[in-house]
C-alpha cells in the first residue's frame, strides 16, 4: 500500500468485521443452554474441600 487511493474500502471492511463479530458473539451467548451456564458458573465453588469461612 503506497497511496491513500482506494482507502474507502477500509472503513467498510472494518464495519463488516465489527458487525459480524458482535452478531456472532450475541448468537453464542443467547443460544448457550441454561444448565450449562449454571454448571460452568459454579466451577470456582466446587472446591470446598478446604477450610472455608476463614476470617
Amino acid at each position, binding site marked *: *500500500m*503506497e*497511496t*491513500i487511493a482506494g482507502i474507502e474500502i*477500509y472503513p467498510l471492511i*472494518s464495519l463488516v*468485521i465489527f458487525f459480524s*463479530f*458482535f452478531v456472532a*458473539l*450475541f*448468537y*453464542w*451467548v*443467547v*443460544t*448457550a*443452554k441454561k444448565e*450449562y*451456564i*449454571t*454448571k*460452568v*458458573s*459454579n*466451577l*470456582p*465453588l466446587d*472446591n470446598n*474441600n*478446604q*477450610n*472455608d469461612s*476463614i*476470617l
Partner: protein
Amino acid sequence: MEMQQFYYDNKIVKKFIYATILWGVVGMLVGLLLAFMFLFPNLTDGISWLSFGRLRPLHTNAVIFAFVGNAIFAGVYYSSQRLLKARMFSDFLSNFNFWGWQLIIVGAALTLPLGFTTSKEYAELEWPFDIAIALVWVAFGWNLIGTILKRRQRHLYVALWFYIATFVTVAVLHIFNSLELPVAALKSYSVYAGVQDALVQWWYGHNAVAFFLTTPFLGLMYYFVPKAANRPVYSYRLSIVHFWSLIFIYIWAGPHHLLYSALPEWAQHLGVAFSVMLIAPSWGGMINGLLTLRGAWDKVRTDPVLKFMVVAITGYGMATFEGPMLSLKNVNAIAHFTDWVIAHVHVGALAWNGFLAFGMIYYLIPKLFKTRLFSVGLANLHFWIGTLGIVLYALPMYVAGFTQASMWKQFNPDGTLVYGNFLETVSEIIPMYWMRAIGGTLYITGMLVLVYNIVMTISRADSKVEDELAEAPALSRVTGKRTASEGWHTWLERKPVLLTIYATIAILIGGIVQIIPTLVVESNIPTISSVKPYTPLELEGRDIYIREGCVGCHSQMIRPFRSEVERYDLTNDKQYSKAGEYVYDHPFLWGSKRTGPDLHRLGGKYSDNWHFNHMYDPQSTSSGSIMPSYRWLIRNELDKSMTEKKMEAMVTLGVPYTDEEIANAQSSMLAQGTQIEKNLYSDPDFATSYEADKAASGADFVEMKNREIVALIAYLQRLGTDIKKSDLDNQTAQN
C-alpha cells in the same frame, strides 16, 4: 468413573505471594520517595542513581511488573489448578517462571537507577532483559496451556480465558514494542523512529494497562469474588460478552495517548472511537463483579476480603469511566501532560490492582496455612487507611491537573499568556503535591499493616504450606466436533487451543489495522528537507537525556494550540511540532507528563551558560524550580568510545550519516565541544572557577569540552532549530 488423585502446588503460590508483598513495599516506597522529591527536589542531592528521572521508571516497573506481576502469577497459579482440577503442567516451569521473574526484577532494580534505559514507558528495560522477559513469559504460557491440556475439567471457566488472552497479547505487545538494535551490552536503539515509535509504544503502553493490569485481574476477579462471597458470578452470559468485546476493542485504543500530537489524524480518531466504546465492556464487567455480591452484602460489612474487592471493583469502574472521557479530544486537551493523568492511573493502580491483590492475599494466606487471619481488626484498619490514602492521593491530583491546565491556557486581553513563566504553574500546585505525599504515606502505611498481619498469621500457623491432595475423574475422550446438544460457545470452551487462536485473532485485527498503515504508508509521515540528523555530539547528548530520564518530566511535543505555541516557541514562527521533525528520533522522546516545560523548541532560547548553571543548580537560574541538580553531568567525562558504533547503528535504522561523517565523528565532537567551552567562558564566574579547578587538578584533569554537560548542551541547543516557517512554506509549495 475412576478417580485420580493429585496434588495442587501450593508452594509456588506461596512464593509468588511473598514476592508480591516484598516488591509491593519496595515499589510503593520508591513512589513515596518520588512524591517527596516534588516537595524537596534535592532530597537525594548529587546521587545520580537516586535522581528523579532514574527512579521514576523504577517505580512504575516495580509496581506494574513486580507487585502486580507477582500477584497475577500467585492468583493464576492458585486458581488455574483448581479450575482445571490438575497440578500445574511442570514444576520446573513454575519455578523457572518464579525465579526468572524475580531475577529480572532485581536486574531492573540495578540497571534502571544506573541509567540503562530505552526510555520507552513501561518498557524501559534494555534488550537483554527484553529477551529474558520473553523467555520467562513463554515459560508461563507453556505451563498454563500445558495445564489446560491435561485438565480434568471439561469446560474452561471464564477466568481462564482472561489468563489465555493475557498470555497471548502481552507476548505480542512485548515482542513488537521491544524491537531494537543493540549497540552495546546494555544500550540499544528502537528500530522505529518518531511518530512510528510513538504509535507502537502507545499501542504497547495502553495495552500493557489492558492486558497486564486489567485482563489478568478480571480473571482473578471472576475467580476470587465468587469464592470469597461463596456464590456464582452474577451472569455468566455477561462474562462471555465481557471477555470477547473487551479484548476485541481494547487493542485499538492506544492512540488516545497521542491526541493532538504529530500522529496522523485518522489514527487519533480511531483511538478515540474505540476508547469510547470500551466503556461498555468495562462497565459490563464491573457490574458483573459487583452484582455477584447480590444477597451477600451483609458479608461485605464483616469480611475485609470482600471490602477490599468491592473497592477494587469500584475503582475499576471509576478508572474505566474516566478513561473514555480522557480519550475525548476536548477533555484530553485539558488533561494530557497534567497531573490528572497521574490521578487516573493511581485510581487504577491503588484501588483496582492494589486492593484486589490485598483482598486476594488476605483470602489466600489463611487458606494456604490452614489457619485464621491473625487480626481481622488490622485488616479492617488497612482497608480504611488504604481507602483514605487513595482519596487523598487522587483528589489533589485532579485539582492539580485542572489548575495547571487552566493556568497554561490563560491569556491576557492583549494576547499574551497570563502565566508566561511555567514555574508559576508549578508553585501553584505544590500544596496538592503535599496532600498527594500524605495520601501516599497513608496507603503505604496500610501496606505495612498488611505485612505485619501476614507475618503474624504465618508465624502463628501450626502447619507449613503443603501441596494439597485433590481428586477428580479423568476426562473421557469426546469427539472434537460439536455434539448435538452443544452450543457453539460450549464447544469452543472445551477446545482451548482453538479458543486461544480466536483470542489471538481478536487482538491482532486492531493492531494490524492501526500499526501497519503508519509503518508502510509514506505519505502519513511527511518529511521536511531541512530536518537533518543529529551531529555526533548531539547524539551523545541525546543519549545522556535518555539516561537521566528527562522524558519523565519534559515533553517534546508542542500540540497545535495557541497556548502551547505561544509558550514554547519563542521565535516569531510559532510552530507546533510536526511529524517530519522526528524522523531521526530513535527512540521518540515525546514524553507523557509536563512536570517541567516542553523542550521541543528549546534550542537557542537560552545561552550555553544558562544551561550549564541550570544543570548545576536549577534553583539558581529558576527560582522555585523543583528540578533536581544534575551536577554529575558537569564532572563526568563524556564516553566517546561508542560514538561511531552508535552512528553505524543509526545508519542501519535509516539515518543518512555518510561514511565520512562517521570517520570524522571524533574530530566533529571535539570541534563542537570546543565551541561550547568557548561560549561558556563568556561567563566570568565560570572562567574563574573553571581555571582555578584546572590549576588545582593534576594531569588527569578532564577539559570541559570533553565532559557530559557539553554534549547535553549541544543536544538541548539543537532541539527544534531545524525547521523555520520558510522551510515549511517551501515544503507546502512542493507538495
